[in-house]
């Protein structure tokens, strides 16, 4: 009961604290409304601004009005304000420039990088609060092992560390600096590390380290970092968006642990909100790819030899640029299925040009967007929107599949796995069951590709060997440029 009474005593009224708590309430409301608005296309941008203003409010009022209770019961404001402002300015400038400069195609790794920063921030807070916690624990007479502050610090460190290390690996993989490491052994290493981490947290809670004994917290930090690496390492590149989303919700939980520690409602609501919505978002993403979360984490994707064995004797048919131009020019309906290759080649603007050119010749061109085209769900929509492609021209996968029989020519640009018939026809394929755009049901298919290399899931695509398919090899941008020139000459 002592602690409860202490808790009650701690709530002392002062105008500053009251204003601070009110600002946190407003910030929390802005976060919630911002997130709500972010989930509708019309209000999304406003929602982002609302959340950002809530954040600014919370940061500003924390600097101005936050008071910490010291050992003798008096209240202290925030010190080192000069340093804090300097750090805020440095972070803002770097963050702003990085976010402005990054190419739209590199967006997913940028999000991952920022997510890692948040995780590292949460882990650092725990590292710094640990010594203080030790002295508090020592002063406490209660025998309760379940000390909320201690738990929050340890979990904050653990989750923040995993999120940081994991995000860095995800960043490296998306940026193609780190390859996939696939080994069944890793699965067991992972599980044992996870077990070790949890056991170590319990151990620290039970052992109640006395002041000065800091090796435990650094060991925990080290374990969390290693687990973060081994957790993401075996996961296939195509699943990276799901992992980033998952790590995103991890960081949310780590932030909430900070809120628990400081009894700070803005951090608590903000963190948990992201934690739960991030988890739901992760599950929604998995559904869009028809994969279970467990499957993603265990990392069954890619590396499989299914289908690869039967390719040896197959040949692909190429199409010349002029034939392709004629074919397109005399079609009624054309569907473009873009993939990451289009994004890499920065060919979205040329796509739009082709669309206008064919439009002037009476050919209707639409885009069939697979939910996970590009590197993240919705990534392709963003890229095409950047090139001024009208919203009505973008067809979702279901609509595209419904009309596919009436399409004269499908142009697949830099996409592979999302148009792979194996997903529907070969139950042994690693992508079996993933919804795909059934381009092989159209009257003709032209596949623009740089080479016969496999897609992100690293599996063979039988579409390329089908009788109605013609290949047009080359860089998407150059090929489109030449194709547009050919059509203009007709």
């Amino acid at each position, binding site marked *: 009961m002592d602690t409860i009474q202490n808790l009650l005593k701690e709530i002392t009224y002062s105008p500053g604290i009251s204003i601070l708590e009110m600002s946190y309430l407003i910030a929390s409301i802005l976060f919630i409304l911002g997130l709500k608005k972010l989930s509708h296309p019309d209000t999304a941008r406003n929602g982002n601004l609302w959340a950002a203003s809530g954040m600014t409010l919370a940061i500003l009022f924390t600097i101005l009005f936050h008071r910490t209770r010291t050992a003798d019961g008096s209240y202290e404001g*925030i010190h080192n304000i000069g340093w804090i402002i300097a750090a805020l300015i440095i972070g803002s400038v770097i963050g702003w420039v990085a976010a402005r400069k990054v190419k739209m195609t590199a967006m997913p790794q940028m999000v991952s990088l*920022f997510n890692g920063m948040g995780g590292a921030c949460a882990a650092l807070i725990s590292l710094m609060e640990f010594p203080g916690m030790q002295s508090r624990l020592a002063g406490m007479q209660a025998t309760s092992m379940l000390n909320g502050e201690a738990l929050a610090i340890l979990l904050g460190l653990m989750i923040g560390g995993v999120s940081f290390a994991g995000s860095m690996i995800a960043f490296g993989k998306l940026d193609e600096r780190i390859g996939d490491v696939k080994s069944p052994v890793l699965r067991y290493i992972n599980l044992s590390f996870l077990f070790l981490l949890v056991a170590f947290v319990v151990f620290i809670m039970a052992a109640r380290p006395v002041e000065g004994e800091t090796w435990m917290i650094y060991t925990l930090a080290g374990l969390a970092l290693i687990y973060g690496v081994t957790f993401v390492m075996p996961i296939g590149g195509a699943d990276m968006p799901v992992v980033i989303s998952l790590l995103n919700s991890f960081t949310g939980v780590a932030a*909430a642990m900070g809120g628990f520690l400081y009894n700070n409602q803005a951090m*608590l609501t903000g963190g*948990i909100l992201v934690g739960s919505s991030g988890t739901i978002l992760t599950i929604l993403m998995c559904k869009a790819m028809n994969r279970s979360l467990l499957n993603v984490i265990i990392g069954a994707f890619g590396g499989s030899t299914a289908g690869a064995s039967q390719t040896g004797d197959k040949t692909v048919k190429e199409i010349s640029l002029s034939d392709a131009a004629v074919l397109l020019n005399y079609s009624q309906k054309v569907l473009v299925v873009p993939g990451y290759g289009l994004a890499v080649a920065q060919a979205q603007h040329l796509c739009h040009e082709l669309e206008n050119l064919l439009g002037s010749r009476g050919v209707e061109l639409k885009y069939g967007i697979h939910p996970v085209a590009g590197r993240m*769900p919705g990534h392709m929509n963003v890229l095409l929107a950047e090139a001024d492609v009208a919203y009505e021209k973008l067809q979702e996968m279901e609509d595209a599949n419904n009309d596919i029989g009436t399409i004269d020519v499908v142009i697949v640009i830099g996409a592979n796995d999302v148009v792979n018939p194996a997903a529907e026809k070969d139950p042994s394929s690693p992508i079996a069951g993933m919804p795909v755009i059934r381009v092989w049901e159209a009257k003709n298919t032209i596949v623009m590709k740089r080479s016969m290399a496999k897609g992100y899931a690293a599996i063979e695509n039988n579409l390329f060997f089908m009788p109605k398919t013609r290949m047009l090899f080359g860089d998407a941008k150059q090929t489109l440029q030449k194709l547009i020139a050919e059509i203009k000459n007709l």
Partner: protein
Amino acid sequence: MDDVLKFFIEYREAVFIIILSIFLGIEVISHVPSVLHTPLMSGANAIHGVVIIGAIIVMGHADNVLSMILGFIAVVLGTLNVVGGFVVTDRMLEMFKKKVNKK
């Protein structure tokens, strides 16, 4: 068992906030179209940058060089998360805005 009961009564407010926020988070984004998955993830990413408040508090009562340095790094990283997150999200959504206007 006694520990758990004590824990609950001691932190009941936080526990309530956590549980209710979980439901809120699920409810708020459950009908998001897949087009918005990436911006939404990025926006949520910026919101968990709220952890910066903790960094400011810890920096605010740092009294030795090591914790000053760590605190400084924490504030810089937190700001990166917040500012970078919101700006990237805004850039993505800027493009959606154009489409909406055209409608």
